[in-house]
């Protein structure tokens, strides 16, 4: 097995081993059948519940999407209608605002908290991880917060008026504040903080020790060791956060149903409203627009952002790697400090 793997690796890297280069052996028919059987359920599932609805919705967007009456082709009518629809434009604006707030409060803050937490005693770190690990129902929490935001008898209003002596606050009833208050509960749950803590714990202590020896300050260590090491995780979670925020629905529906005045109506919530209004074609078009928008953001992100902490010269072009001259596992944390190269190279990541 190990020798077969080595043969495959060398063949992929293009290095020539000797005069008799080993070709990748063709799998037997039985092996190929087994492989296919293993993969088939997942492929069928993805085709059924992923690709088929996607393609069907796309095709439906070019029709009048009648439920039982004959379906007629309408071309780009729905696309043009939704392109010019002020409510659709507003929904995208609200979604962008919500996504920005979400990323700022529930994505950036946990990074800072996780980094600062690493400076605390180990038992404190364990307690925080335990708290983050407790499973909480998002819906149940949202319902509780909805009551807490009530302007008549909610605890937030009590704190605002009785403790802070502020005038009565509108909370969810304010068009300018509603999105912040919808995002706020996510801040308290710290989102992906657990993943950041786990990643930070995987960074060898020797990196920080070497940096300290070289006189690096706390923030210098954070900037040159912690953040680069977190970069792959940040990159992955940022994409998930962008995609998740773009599809925001349940929090808005539970708390405000898109109000007041559409100030918290995200794209998916507007899509839901269109379904309730029996405008099925318009709803699918909105879904297509959302899909294209999110794909564009992700594509641009992958194009511009380098998430590999060990090979800063690498560039990613549409998911393909142009290999650098140095194999990945030999790069080390060469950027830790400007004078710590020697100390870094003696330590192997993951050892």
């Amino acid at each position, binding site marked *: *097995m190990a*020798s077969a793997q080595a043969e495959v690796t060398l063949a992929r890297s293009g290095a020539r081993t000797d005069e008799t280069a080993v070709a990748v052996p063709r799998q*037997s028919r*039985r*092996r190929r059948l*087994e492989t296919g*059987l*293993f993969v*088939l*359920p997942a492929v*069928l*599932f993805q085709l*059924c519940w992923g690709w088929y609805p996607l393609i069907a919705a796309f095709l439906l967007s070019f029709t*009048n999407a*009648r*439920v*039982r*009456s004959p379906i007629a082709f309408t071309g780009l*009518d729905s696309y*043009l*209608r939704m392109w*010019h*629809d*002020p*409510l659709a434009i507003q929904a995208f604006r609200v979604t962008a605002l919500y996504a920005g707030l979400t990323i700022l409060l529930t994505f950036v803050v946990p990074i800072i908290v996780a980094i600062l937490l690493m400076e605390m005693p180990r038992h404190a770190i364990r307690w925080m991880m335990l708290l983050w690990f407790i499973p909480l129902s998002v819906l149940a929490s949202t319902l509780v917060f*909805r*009551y807490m*935001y*009530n*302007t*008549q008898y909610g605890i937030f209003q009590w704190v605002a008026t009785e403790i802070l002596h502020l005038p009565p606050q*509108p909370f*969810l*009833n*304010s*068009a*300018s504040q*509603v999105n912040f208050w919808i995002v706020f509960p996510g801040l308290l749950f710290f989102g992906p903080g657990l993943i950041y803590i786990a990643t930070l714990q995987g960074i060898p202590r020797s990196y920080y020790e070497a940096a300290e020896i070289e006189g690096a300050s706390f923030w210098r260590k954070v900037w040159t060791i912690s953040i680069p090491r977190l970069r792959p995780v940040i990159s992955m979670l940022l994409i998930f956060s962008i995609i998740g925020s773009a599809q925001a629905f349940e929090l808005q529906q539970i*708390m*405000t*149903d898109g*109000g*007041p*005045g*559409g*100030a918290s*109506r995200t794209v998916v919530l507007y899509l839901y*409203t*269109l*379904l*309730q*209004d*029996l*405008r099925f074609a318009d709803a699918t078009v909105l879904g297509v627009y959302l899909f294209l928008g999110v794909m564009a953001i992700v594509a641009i992100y992958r194009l511009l952002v380098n998430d590999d902490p060990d090979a800063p010269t690498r560039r990613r072009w549409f998911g393909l790697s142009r290999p650098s001259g140095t194999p990945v596992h030999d790069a080390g944390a060469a950027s830790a400090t400007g004078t710590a190269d020697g100390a870094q190279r003696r330590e192997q990541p993951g050892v």
Partner: protein
Amino acid sequence: MDGYPDASSLSHGNARRAGMTRRDVLRALAAGSTALAGVPLLSTFGIGDAAVTAAPARALGQAVDVTLITAADLPYPGIPTAEVQASDPGMKAYAEAIQPWLDENPGVKLEQITFDVYDQEALLVAISGGTAPSFYPADVLGEWDEELVLASEKSGLAADVTDQIAQNDLEAKLADYCLALWKTKEVEGRHYALPYGYNCGDGIHYRIDLIKQAGLEEPTVDWTWDDLRNLAKALTTDEIKGIGMHTWGLALPLAAEAWGYTVLRNRLPAPETSWNWKWDFTTNAEEWADRIAWFRSMMFEDQSILADIAMEDDEIDAQFIQGTVAMANNNSTYHTTSPSPSVELSMSRAADELGKPIEEVFGYVPHPVGNNGFNATSWGQMDTMALNPDLDTTALDKAASLHIYMMGPGFVSQKRAAYEETNDLRYVWTGGDITPLYKPSELEGIPGTPEEAWGEAFMKNVRYVANRPLMPWPHWFIPPQAEAGPSSTPMDDARDRWFLDRSEPDIMADLKTLEETMNQQAASFTSEIPDDQFIAGAKAFYEAQAAYWEENSPEFYTNVFKPWYDSLVAPALG
């Protein structure tokens, strides 16, 4: 090398391990999961799945083998077993009520499934997939928007039951206050649902005890919005709010000035446009702005309104029953919920707990009259029951026959049984049954009267609304469209923001933006109604409106309707 047999190792004579190896297990799992994946895949395409789909309905067609699918108890449960009947008097009464009809219709079965017929999305998916129950409320199809409901019926989401209605002579059975409303449910001369219930719509419920405690007078049917505001302000204390309102509460005082998405003043005929309608919020912008500002001062200066965007409707209702809110808008049937412990919010049970008759605790009055005499915001409503369009003629005949029977003799039988069980008329004349669908001559034998159950004062106001002539609606004259057009969402947004947002809005600018948004949306739709047919229908509609207001509110006709019609509507219709 790893000890697991494969083709090459066998060819080299390596010993095969006895029993299943890990690889064998994995292969078996792969093959098994592939086979298992095929079942849901095939069921997705409706192949081989006979249990969950409407196969029973599709199988109908034989004269004596009909299975009607009901969802829980809407409108009828499945036939309860003897054990259930022994433990539940209500189910026993139901079984006894339906049995005569079953005896006359051998071969008809009722099968109950678990399905939420009030979930619009689930219902639409089920109808399109052929798995919907045989009966479902027609209003759910269009989320209680009359024009959307008609659009959904026209597009085939409900069965045509016109013939079944005629076969059973249904219209001759309907009470007078129902008949006029029933006729408005036609879609191009056809009916796509059966009548299921009648009520006199929304109004203002109020706490008689709190009003008397404050030394105030109860409202009357001709009260105005200023009267309501003064009463709410007088009733407001540190612990009690004068009135509780849902997030759409501003719709009520605006509707009293004939603000509306479909009927008057904001929607104008525009046959020159693609959709035939346009919206107007700027012609009378100052009037609307004044009205909105008036209501906002009630909300933020008087602070007499309990409302919050995060509050559900039943939270307001609960606060009203608890007495922390002195008035609340709701349907009249909320007053007549039985005192049964199974009913979550019951005014009658709350009155019992206070040791008082309900007439001394809770009252009901129609919505206040507008500034210019517009008094059509409380009106009769008819709930209708649609039948699954997949049912064949035989099944439709049986379903309609059963439903029409259960609204008549079956209704009487159950009511008599309820009284025998409880000796309490509040269990007999409950909910919308205070205004039954059928004429009294069709319902002889029901003990007592609604007045005896709920009090003279309450029923007087209910009958006042029920007997009021109906204001004409556009869809009575202009054919509904199968395509749903622009929605009222922008209007709802603006209204909710004006109601709830404390920051001072620029209402005039909002009205202008609202008009632009609505008309921009409308411009992207094309009506399927030919212009000449639309103009003819619109003219008939406005003529009916003029006749209605001239008779029922001359003040509104003279000061509002006629000037508006002459300056804006008539020129548009040529």
